[in-house]
């Protein structure tokens, strides 16, 4: 039942997420005003920022689910962690690809070793390590435990990434939405950004629930195994 509910929630949210993102593309091309300084290239912002937000949401979920797994040893928590980690890597790849494309025009270079970029790349590599350690330990229980520990250690980077633009000298733009004095974006840009954030979040959660349901199914004992186990017991 839990698997079916997760799959249904996944399908609905994925469909809603895809529809919203298609609508956002229409807004980005035909509706939102062009930014005065950077021009048309600034529109990457409506993909890059939501991808970054979704990545941090995903990796935060991995850390919470991993902590729950270490504490409760509940397989569902580990399934949720794996599902979120895969989503985080995918949306992280979108963020790390769209950022340099924007940076090439805005900063004149695809990549610069400024704090936020560097820490984000390291976060992505840490979660790549999550899958490496998980898949390379012969005892699956130990593999899950080690991966959970890597996820928790890696997540300590997330708040540092958030504050890095204010703590260190950085080329990255200062926050324009989450500020003590309120958002400083043009209202139409803010609406487009928030719609895109909603679309990316729904798409991620949809993919997360679908992956979670597959992970739960893969951990169920197969009918042959149940039969053999009952034969052994009787």
């Amino acid at each position, binding site marked *: 039942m839990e698997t079916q509910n997760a799959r249904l929630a996944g399908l609905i949210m994925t469909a809603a997420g895809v529809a919203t993102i298609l609508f956002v593309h229409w807004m980005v091309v035909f509706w939102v005003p062009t930014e005065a300084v950077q021009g048309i290239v600034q529109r990457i912002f409506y993909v890059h920022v939501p991808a970054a937000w979704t990545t941090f949401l995903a990796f935060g979920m991995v850390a919470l689910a991993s902590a729950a797994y*270490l504490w409760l040893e509940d397989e569902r928590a580990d399934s949720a962690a794996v599902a979120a980690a895969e989503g985080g890597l995918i949306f992280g790849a979108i963020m790390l690809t769209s950022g340099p494309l924007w940076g090439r025009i805005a900063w004149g270079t695809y990549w610069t070793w400024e704090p936020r970029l*560097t820490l984000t790349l*390291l*976060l992505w*590599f*840490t979660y*790549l*390590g999550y899958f*490496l*350690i998980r898949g*390379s*330990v*012969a*005892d699956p229980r*130990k593999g899950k*435990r*080690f991966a*959970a*520990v*890597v996820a*928790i*250690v*890696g997540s*300590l980077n997330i708040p540092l990434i958030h504050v890095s633009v204010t703590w260190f000298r950085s080329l990255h733009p200062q926050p324009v939405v989450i500020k003590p004095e309120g958002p400083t974006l043009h209202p139409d840009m803010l609406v487009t950004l928030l719609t895109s954030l909603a679309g990316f979040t729904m798409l991620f959660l949809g993919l997360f629930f679908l992956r979670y349901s597959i992970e739960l199914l893969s951990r169920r004992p197969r009918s042959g195994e149940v039969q053999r186990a009952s034969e052994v017991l009787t």
Partner: protein
Amino acid sequence: MTSLRWVAVVAHKDLRIEFRAGGRVVAMIALAVLACFLFAFALDRSQVSARHVAASLTWLTVLFAATAGAGRAFDTEEEDGAFRHLLLTPIPRHAIFLGKTAANLVLIWMVTLLTFIALTAFLGLRDPGSLTHHGAVFLPGTIGLAATGTFFGLVSRHSSLGDTILPALTFPLLVPVIFFGATASARVFMERPWPEISGSVRLLWAFALGFTAVGCVLFRYVAEE
């Protein structure tokens, strides 16, 4: 027994085994000194000033040697099942972690000292800056290296990828150590005043203490049998 006493017992045991057998520390030192030797040949000193690159080379050499050593930190005990027996003793898990980190730290200090001497000699640096300042930079940096290496050394020990996975797990986390360590050491080599160095040292201490605390909390999850 207090935790501190347990830490000393575990560290003493590890160091005694290490100095009796000697394999790991000799390999670490050989790696470090030979790397310095190769750096001296690889650098075109008509183009690059030795003083400008000495800090980076020292930190990278120490990082590689420390990683190589950390990968073998649990080998002797794992091979004959002694680590399982260590876990059965009443020693708290965090004391085992701190004891092993302390033992690793001693080895890393030896490697750091020899790397420093070898690099200054091979690169012909007559005046490498204040030795006290170098010590103040290397102390928190090497604690961070030892804690991270010890923690993930046990994790990598169970992986079929062996030592290959250890850099993949530790290097992303150790970037702050290398960045702030190399920045601070470069300023010491350039004989800059302490206020220009102290900011990086504070961040090195924050990383070292932070990761040691995290390691103490999480070690029981990687050291379960």
